[in-house]
């Protein structure tokens, strides 16, 4: 039925399309998506910035502008401590995902010549990404606990006589958990960049007598840098916005800015939560901007 109605006026439309209708059509195709993002992404973020200057009373906020919440944030040991913990955990996880992920990416992207095998290995690395994030976090509890799998194995082979208690409910467990969950985002981009290296370049270096380390330092590492930067951006944004891993594995010992936001919202301290959110946004923006300075991605990709 609708088909007949549309076909009626088509000849005119097709004739006019390239000249007048085009910008119009683009506009209507984009409008719903762009509007959705403006209303439900940009507006909430702006609201967060705005509310951070509101006045916080015990259970509610009033739209009287003040710097009080900001002053409270930057004079409180709890908040500053959370900021410092966030930065520290982020740096450690960034380095550990790179160190853990790079060799695997090197093998998958450069050493496996068989395309099917390297794709299969990459898929194997990505599959956990499809399973529930919370379950993967929770899976570390029976691994790291006092009676957990790692302690049990270590005691059985006689490396230790007493279980290592620091494995779970500590900063270490948060770092281990985050490294495992996020290193996939490092491996993918790096393996992709390594896969694009022309093998003849490496062969030429070999023929001229360069050893592996020399080739690695002068060819492989520089050419993989865009992958490292992309991976670092992924990992940084996700780790800085984290709160679930520390909630599950640190036993409340590690408080990230994300955890502060969750607790503040829970106790209806909206203005404080907003301040923590804005600080987190600024931190994230600075980190991404700094990483983009390291390598000019547009030129390299």
């Amino acid at each position, binding site marked *: 039925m609708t*088909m007949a109605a*549309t076909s009626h006026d*088509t000849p005119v*439309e*097709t004739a006019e399309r390239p000249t007048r209708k*085009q*910008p119009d*059509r*683009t506009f209507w*195709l*984009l409008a719903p*998506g*762009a509007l*959705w*993002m403006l*209303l*439900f*992404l940009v507006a*909430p*973020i702006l*609201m*967060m910035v705005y509310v951070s200057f509101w006045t916080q009373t015990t259970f509610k906020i009033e739209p009287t502008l003040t710097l009080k919440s900001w002053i409270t944030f930057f004079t409180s040991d709890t908040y500053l401590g959370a900021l410092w913990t966030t930065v520290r955990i982020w740096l450690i996880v960034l380095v550990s995902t790179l160190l*853990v*992920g790079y*060799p*695997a990416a*090197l*093998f998958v992207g450069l*050493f496996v010549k068989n395309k099917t095998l390297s794709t299969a290995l990459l898929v*194997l*690395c990505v599959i956990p990404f*499809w*399973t*529930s*994030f*919370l*379950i*993967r976090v*929770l*899976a570390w*509890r*029976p691994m790291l606990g006092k*009676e957990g*799998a790692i302690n*049990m194995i270590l005691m059985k082979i006689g490396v230790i006589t007493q279980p290592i208690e620091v494995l779970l409910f500590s900063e270490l467990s948060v770092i281990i958990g985050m490294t*495992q969950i996020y290193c996939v985002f490092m491996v993918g981009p790096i393996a992709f960049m390594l896969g694009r290296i022309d093998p003849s370049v490496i062969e030429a270096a*070999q023929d001229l007598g*360069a*050893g*592996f380390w020399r*080739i690695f330092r002068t060819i492989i590492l520089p050419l993989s840098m865009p992958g490292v930067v992309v991976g670092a951006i992924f990992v940084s944004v*996700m780790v800085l*916005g984290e709160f*679930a891993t520390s*909630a599950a594995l640190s036993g409340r010992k590690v408080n990230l800015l994300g955890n502060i936001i969750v607790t503040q*919202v829970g106790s209806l301290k*909206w203005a404080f939560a*907003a301040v923590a*959110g804005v600080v987190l946004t600024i931190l*994230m923006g600075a980190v991404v901007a700094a990483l983009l300075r390291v390598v000019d991605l547009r030129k390299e990709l």
Partner: protein
Amino acid sequence: MNASGIKFGLGVYTALFIVFLYGPLVVLAILSFQTGPEGGPQFPIIEWSTYWYKHLFGLTPPSRIAPLPIDQALFRSLALAVMTMIVSTVLGVTAAQAFRKKFRGSGVIFYLIVLGMMVPGVLVGLGMALVANTLGIDRHWWGTAFVLHVVYTFPFAFLVMLAIFNRFDPSVEEAAWSLGVPPARTFRKITFPLIFPGVLSAMLFAFTLSYDEFSRTLFASGRDLTLPLAIYGTFSVEVHPNVFAFGVLTTLFSFALLGTYAVLMGLSVRRAKRMAIQEEA
């Protein structure tokens, strides 16, 4: 370079790396078969049993361990994932369709869309909670949480479709238009079958991401729990193997989705090949 030695070393490393990725999930799966209700979430397995799976479905006599609140949560999570999947796929296809033509301001719009997958859930979630709080809107999983799920999954759908349209030969469409086929019909008969693999991928992304999403939901969904929120609720208390059993089931569900996707994808590729052969003959 002594490539073979290094290659062997890196191969062994990669194998260990994969053990590192999968080890915890395997341990979790094994422990889900612990005996209950007295068996705890650790080794050794006292006796193999499916007690915790029965516990999950309320088939065991009441014990001191409360069952996970999953029946209603499962419905909500599935409904939310389907809603998110439909809306974000439609938005992704239309937006990517617009990007096939060059237009002014395309850079800004591109970053506006991609921002949705980059901004952490805790920030948009908080922002949305503040907006709802100020405007006096009640937060619900089907309202405030749903729009945030789309904010998160729409960029994935958009990027997938962008990649598909990049490899797409516009001359087939132009041929249809010049033969007087109306645009809506051209889309249905020509464009859509060609972009179908992309649409399928976008749908899989959107469904899975929404089904597992929880940081946005935590702030924006109000009182009613979705599945991930039910799991998150167990974080602060002692964990029992019933959560592990649930983890196994939900992982199997994700794999089943992935399998269905692979089968559908294979069928569509085969059909495309058959059509190509017919055309040649």
